[in-house]
């Protein structure tokens, strides 16, 4: 399995710069508004300092009233400004997140199937769920918090500098230890929290699967086993939590112990300056209050850096998907004829040994070919070559004289449909689940397609074609889902169908129902059926027996039975008595 790539730091930074420059104006407005809000937010301590000075100088009640009113005014203006700043920031965040996830999904949809399969869909699923939402939270919540905190801190410290440069220098007293411990913490935090999250998810999964498999637990008497298994999970979670707690213990104690340092230094330096009449008492008080006020944004900033770091990592994984070269557009838009020809096709999965050793095969339009053989013989691989999902390492697979992989992918899928055991029902209405196969199909055509495949359950749906399926709405059973997939085929109307054990995962009676539905779809098309049931082979025009990546026998059912090879032996064990009559 080759994993999907992850973007390196430089690429991520460039992508971030691009995003910011695309929204240059919005970012500018947000920063300006936040700065304005923070400046007005600085006024109250300064005004308090002024009150202290004036009162010490013997000012009257009127002065105090005026200054107090000014404080209230500043609070209101600051709140108003920060509201608009936040709103603008929020809009920017929403826009950026929307762009990001749409880009990600369209990239994902453009991925060649072979890449997805080799990487395993789990990786992609994690990126589409965990990473998209992590980046979303980061952009919507974390970045604004960090921006606000940074602006506030800059202004608070700036204000102290303005009061007196020496006070400003004194205010930096706590910084070195905070910076050092933050660096220490960030180097370890992300992986520790990811471990913790994974451990917690595993515990939840253990509980859920134990509940899902309760009957099996009882049947195989696995209770003690499950409890033991779960207890180790609980221990793992406990240990992971202790590890993160240890990190926090160091981080927060150093950070919190550093908070009073600036205040203390400012008071000391301020006392020295005040004794020389270089600053007023009010200025020192205001500086102390500013620094006391700085604790809150500082706290927020530090708490969110770890999250921001994680968002960065998630973003790198999202961008990684875009680094996979998309499925190449075909060189030929169409081909003449429908004759499938395979010549000397060899294939291996990523430098492994050859799975197919020179396959030669011709399928005439309208013919039904069954491919049988033991598992591991390369049947599914052959199906993938025929459908153009993979290209042969050597040799050629062509339709109407044109290599299938040269066809435009959209066109190819319209002509050659591959049906597998997977019958995914998409979240959405019945119509949504059908229309993508044939965007122009009318409602009538959709209903007719469902009827063709014998989907009687359709008549009982409450909202006809608009009935919602999946994700909390109506769940279809395996046979129903497979019928839906077949109805899709009726609508797509491909001239060639490749069935890769389409009914193998169904229980036998469901499989039988589905096979009847399938028969309706097959009429008038070229069909290549990978079969594990011999009656499918028996009904076909020709049967190809695949063993160890080679076609060992090919011919009509009767010919093969008469030839007395492996196929005949199998057939006899299947129908002992019937044949003897």
């Amino acid at each position, binding site marked *: 399995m080759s994993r999907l790539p992850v973007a390196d730091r430089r690429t991520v930074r460039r992508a971030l710069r691009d995003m910011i420059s695309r929204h240059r104006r919005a970012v500018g407005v947000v920063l300006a508004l936040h700065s304005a809000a923070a400046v007005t937010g600085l006024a109250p301590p300064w005004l308090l300092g002024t009150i202290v000075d004036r009162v010490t100088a013997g000012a009257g009640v009127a002065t105090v009233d005026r200054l107090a009113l000014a404080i209230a005014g500043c609070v209101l203006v600051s709140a108003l400004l920060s509201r608009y700043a936040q709103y603008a920031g929020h809009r920017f965040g929403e826009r950026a997140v929307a762009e990001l996830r749409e880009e990600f999904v369209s990239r994902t949809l453009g991925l060649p199937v072979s890449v997805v399969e080799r990487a395993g869909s789990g990786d992609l699923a994690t990126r589409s769920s965990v990473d998209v939402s992590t980046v979303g939270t980061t952009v919507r919540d974390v970045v604004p918090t960090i921006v606000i905190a940074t602006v506030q801190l800059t202004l608070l410290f700036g204000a102290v500098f303005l009061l007196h440069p020496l006070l400003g220098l004194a205010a930096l007293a706590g910084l070195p230890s905070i910076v050092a411990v933050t660096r220490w913490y960030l180097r370890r935090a992300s992986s520790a929290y990811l471990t913790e999250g994974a451990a917690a998810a595993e515990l939840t999964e253990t509980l859920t699967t134990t509940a899902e498999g309760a009957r099996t637990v009882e049947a195989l008497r696995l209770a003690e086993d499950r409890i033991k298994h779960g207890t180790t999970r609980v221990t793992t979670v406990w240990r992971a939590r202790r590890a993160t707690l240890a990190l926090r213990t160091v981080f927060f104690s150093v950070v919190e112990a550093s908070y009073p340092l600036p205040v*203390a230094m400012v008071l000391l330096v301020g006392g020295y300056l*005040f004794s020389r009449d270089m600053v007023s008492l009010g200025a020192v008080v205001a500086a102390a209050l500013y620094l006391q006020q700085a604790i809150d944004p500082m706290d927020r900033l530090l708490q969110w850096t770890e999250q921001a770091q994680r968002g960065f990592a998630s973003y790198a994984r999202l961008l990684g998907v875009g680094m996979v070269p998309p499925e190449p557009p075909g060189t030929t838009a169409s081909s003449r004829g429908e004759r499938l020809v395979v010549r000397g096709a060899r294939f291996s999965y990523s430098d492994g040994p050859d799975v197919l050793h020179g396959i030669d095969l011709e399928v005439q339009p309208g013919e039904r070919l069954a491919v049988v053989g033991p598992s591991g013989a390369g049947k599914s691989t052959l199906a993938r070559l025929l459908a153009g999902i993979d290209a042969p390492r050597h040799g050629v697979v062509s339709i109407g004289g044109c290599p299938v992989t040269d066809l435009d992918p959209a066109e190819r899928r319209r002509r050659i449909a591959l049906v597998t055991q997977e019958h995914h029902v998409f979240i959405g209405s019945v119509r949504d689940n059908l229309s993508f196969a044939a965007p122009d199909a009318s409602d009538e055509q959709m209903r007719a397609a469902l009827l063709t495949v014998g989907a009687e359950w359709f008549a009982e749906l409450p909202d006809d074609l608009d009935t919602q399926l999946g994700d909390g709405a109506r769940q279809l059973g395996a046979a129903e889902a497979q019928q839906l997939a077949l109805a899709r085929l009726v609508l797509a109307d491909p001239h060639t169908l490749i069935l890769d054990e389409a009914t193998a995962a169904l229980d036998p*009676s469901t499989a039988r129902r589905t096979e009847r539905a399938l028969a309706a779809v097959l009429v008038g098309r070229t069909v290549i059926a990978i079969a594990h049931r011999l009656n499918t082979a028996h009904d076909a025009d020709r049967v190809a027996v695949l063993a160890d990546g080679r076609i060992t026998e090919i011919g009509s059912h009767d010919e093969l039975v008469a030839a007395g090879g492996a196929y005949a032996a199998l057939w006899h064990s299947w129908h002992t008595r019937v044949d003897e009559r």
Partner: protein
Amino acid sequence: MRYLWWLVRCQPWRVLRGSLIGTAWMIGLSARPYLIARAVDDGLRERDTQALALWVAAIVVAGVALSYLGIMRHRTMTFIREDAKARSAEVLLRHLSRIGAVLPRRVGAGEVSTIGGSDIDWTAQVLTLTGPGVGAVVAYGVIAVVLWSISPMLALCVLVGVPVVGLIVGPLLRRLEQVESVYRKQQGALTARSGDIVAGLRVLAGVGGRDLFARRYASRSQELRAEGYRVGAVNSWIDAATVAIPGLFLAAVVWLTARMAVTGDVTIGELVAVYGYVATLIVPVWFLLEGSHQLIRGRVAARRIADLLNVTPDDVGGPGRRWPGAVPEARRPDALAAPVGPADLHDPVTGLTVRAGQLTGVAADDPAAAVALADRLGRYVASEVTWAGVPLREVALDEVRARILVADHDSYLFAGTLRDILGAGADDDERISAALRTASAQDVVDALPAGLDTPIDARARTLSGGQRQRLRLARALSSEPEVLILVDPTSAVDAHTEARIAERLRAARAGRTTVVIATSPLLLGRADLVALLSAGRITATGSHADLLDDDPAYRYLVARGSEEAYR
């Protein structure tokens, strides 16, 4: 509530320590404004360098002490919460493991995952109240006393004012949370869609329609963005209000105090201190507001956990299970003795008799009837099945489970290494490899990177349908039960492999009671005796060959409609 109380009672010392440290920390928070005030009053204003140095030193020391208290509080509370979570998880796990087959019918897997994922956390969160909650109340009192010593009038304003501000702002924040949660739900739905697309990529690759899905997703994403704008518009106002209201209150307090400072009722230092106290007081008030909210949510969560713990197993008749069952059933005096050795099983409903030591094939025309038959034979429902004449439901259930195994065709595969999965009943490799050979599943193991030690995820989703089925069969075989009832064991396997399995299964189970419920001629052909289950009754018995010759219904069923060609 009783459940919550139980969680507290499990760790009394820790809870006590938590509340002590929580209290000390909260009170400590108000120390800094006081110390700054003294530094201003005694040191700065008096131009007394020594006093200033003293108070500044006190500020630093207090800061270090406070950070120590803060971190100890955090540690203690984390331990309390983690202890509660671990305890809840273990109790649930034990219960889920023992409750058995009834569970999926009573409780959805989604519910268990909600309980495991968030309810346990919510319940544990309530315990936070025991530390900072207690601390908040005490701290509030202490600040009240200090303020009172400065000015009773001022104290009254602040002590009443802060909670009032809290009560105004609290609901606003809750509203913020609500608006957010609606948005997050929509966001979750959109995430589900992208996951859906990823899961269906192969289907899309097979049939086409990628552009349509990209467009559909984009339009939903735009809807969410518009919703996000709306949420942002509301939230930013609420946010601004939550900042402005306390700010205005603070301004009012400063104004009052400053006027008193003018008249000399309070000192300048006290003016600064009051400013600090008001800011500090917000912390305990917040804790209390937050705590009451957590209590409400936690109680709901705890109720759900308690409800799950109250689910009891089904009654399967006889000296069945009582929950919680303290007395091992085998020792229950009213259980009937099971047959000592292999014995015939008889099901009066269908008339089927399973001969001891033989391989019995059952061909059922209705899969539901086949499953019901297996349920009766394995006593998953109360029934009239007899075992050597003894009513099965009167036998101790433990013994039934130990000796009769029903292997469903969709039995669950848990996550773990392949050895764990297959070793469920056996732990030596020889037994496992014999079972793998019989199930013709060696190639499944060989294809895996680390063989038997390869970790497999739950439901073995990475394997194909046929591979999963063979693993299930191998697992059932490796536990070597006295009676093995297999339901459709090879429906997803190709004919070559099925023929091999049929042959090996017969050899592996030679002399032991085995029932195969299937319609495959390859499997039925190897049975000692085949019974046809038609319309709920056994209508014919005999060897596969005889039934093929004599019974048209049987012939039709196992030849699967390809019969016409042979007329």
